[in-house]
């Protein structure tokens, strides 16, 4: 399908976008589910505050998030210094950094969706499992998580889409480096800034729409599949 006639730069942008979004969802999955469980199942002091902090990336201008990431994870940042010193890891201006930015922006969406689906899981079933000898972890992996799976799927897809379309935090923290951090939105932005590149910009625009549609369809298919599996069980 070279007939798609995508230029190398376009392919590069697509691949970087998919990789950045995939890694972004990958790294927030475990902490996201853990936090969602905490919010759904536990009462503790400062819960409202934590809830607020969790939602910050949704309401803050993305540039602010990117700047905060730069301050903390940059080479001079308190966390960045430590990462550099102990692991030789540098995040700013790398595609991994873009994945961090995308993950942070997508985090609230994932937590929200998973939390809602965890709250819908009947705690009575969890109690029943514990009387059958299942410890907390076994209850979580055999009862809670499977029953919350559709929500996890929705949350994952939402987060993926969010990371894919991330712009402000990414360009602030990871910059716009061709072949490294230039994702689709950044590539499109670059073309818009370039005189005479209207046609190329339009192509990327169409491409973005196609990818968005494809991921929506995929998530719809997955959700229907999961629902069918559950409803089969519901008779």
């Amino acid at each position, binding site marked *: 399908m070279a007939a798609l006639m995508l230029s190398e730069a376009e392919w590069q942008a697509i691949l970087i976008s998919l990789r950045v979004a995939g890694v972004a969802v990958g790294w927030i999955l475990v902490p996201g589910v853990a936090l969602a469980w905490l919010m759904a199942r536990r009462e503790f002091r400062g819960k409202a505050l934590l809830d607020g902090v969790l939602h910050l990336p949704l309401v803050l201008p993305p540039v602010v998030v990117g700047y905060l990431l730069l301050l903390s994870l940059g080479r001079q940042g308190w966390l960045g210094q430590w990462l550099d010193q102990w692991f030789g890891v540098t995040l700013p201006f790398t595609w991994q950094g873009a994945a961090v930015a995308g993950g942070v922006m997508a985090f609230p969406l994932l937590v929200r969706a998973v939390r809602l689906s965890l709250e819908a899981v009947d705690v*009575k*079933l969890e*109690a*029943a*499992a*514990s*009387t*059958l*000898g*299942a*410890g907390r972890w076994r*209850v979580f992996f*055999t*009862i809670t998580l*499977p*029953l919350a799976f559709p929500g996890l799927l929705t949350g994952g897809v939402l987060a993926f889409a969010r990371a894919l379309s991330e712009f402000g935090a990414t360009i602030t923290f990871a910059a716009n480096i061709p072949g490294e951090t230039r994702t689709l939105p950044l590539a499109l932005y670059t073309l818009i800034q370039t005189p005479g590149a209207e046609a190329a910009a339009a192509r990327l625009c169409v491409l973005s729409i196609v990818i968005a549609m494809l991921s929506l369809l995929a998530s719809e298919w997955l959700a229907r599949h999961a629902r069918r599996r*559950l409803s*089969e*069980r*519901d*008779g």
Partner: protein
Amino acid sequence: MSSITPTHDLHPQRRDDLQLTVDKRQGGFRLEASLTLPASGVTALFGPSGSGKTSLLRLIAGLDRPDSGSIRLGHETLTDTRRRRFVPPHRRRLGVVFQEARLFPHYRVRGNLAYGMRGTARARLDDIVELLGIGHLLERFPATLSGGEARRVAIGRALLSEPRLLLMDEPLTGLDGARKQELLDYIARLARDIDIPIVYVSHETDELIAIADHLVLLEQGRVLAHGPLDDLLTRFELTDQLGGFDAASLITATVDGHEPHYALTRLRLPDGQPLTIPIVDAAPGSRLRVRIPVREVALALDEPGATSYRNRLHATVEEIGPPQPGRAAVELRLRLGEQVLRARLTRKSLDEMGLTTGTSVVALVRSVSFDTRRG
């Protein structure tokens, strides 16, 4: 079968008795109980809704913690607030059958049964599946089961975890009459065939009389009385709690023979007196427990002539219950050899017949209904 009315369990303390002393507040409700439950047979936690039965069961299962108190099973401390000890539910090895079955919707029946199954229980899977009649359901998902089927699977699932004690929280709730009787029969059979003590929460006198050996009577978070069922059933002051108008006596008898053309079965009481009941499928010589509702017993001073009362039992008045203001009826306890039969008549009849303690009477029994259990 003892005849006196003890306030405490007569059974000697056994090694694996369940001893508890708990105090728990929940909103405006307070549960305060101190009990020893026997390590065998069926113990019913009985009382109206809101009396604290389910709260007590949840404390035993470890699903809740008491504000203060301790729970011990044999020598093992499950909960002790003073020593800050609390064994979580999954380490207690107590099976729980909840009111709503609580099957896992994403596992088939087989998966539900296997969920808590211990390796050593694998060999018993087939027996338990057969006992509960759930063999044809193994590949189905819970949502496709009827209420009665789901309860049976839940019972099987709990049994396969090889519990030291089986806790059942009103397992018949929401079932219609026929299903209820069917499941009650399964549970009664279970209690007989499987040597696991059962704690059974209920607010239905029928269920209680059908399967309980011991009884804990709860009211507003307090223990009103506890002890062997037969003893508590003969106590006048508990009549209101134990069925009121429908109160009954339990009598043990031996099958003497059948009269199939009349659809009757002849029984013999331990003191030799005959008792005829609607036909039951039991071999001559087997022991049965029959339930004689108090309101079905009439009294006469002498053997009457021809009456439609088939059963005439010679007995002695042992105790006459206290007259209750505003009530026409008074309760009597009659001695029938080793057993006790309760009767109810109006105070007026009592005076006219001149009945006092020690008077010989003939108890006329109109109908006898059965206990599901064999004696």
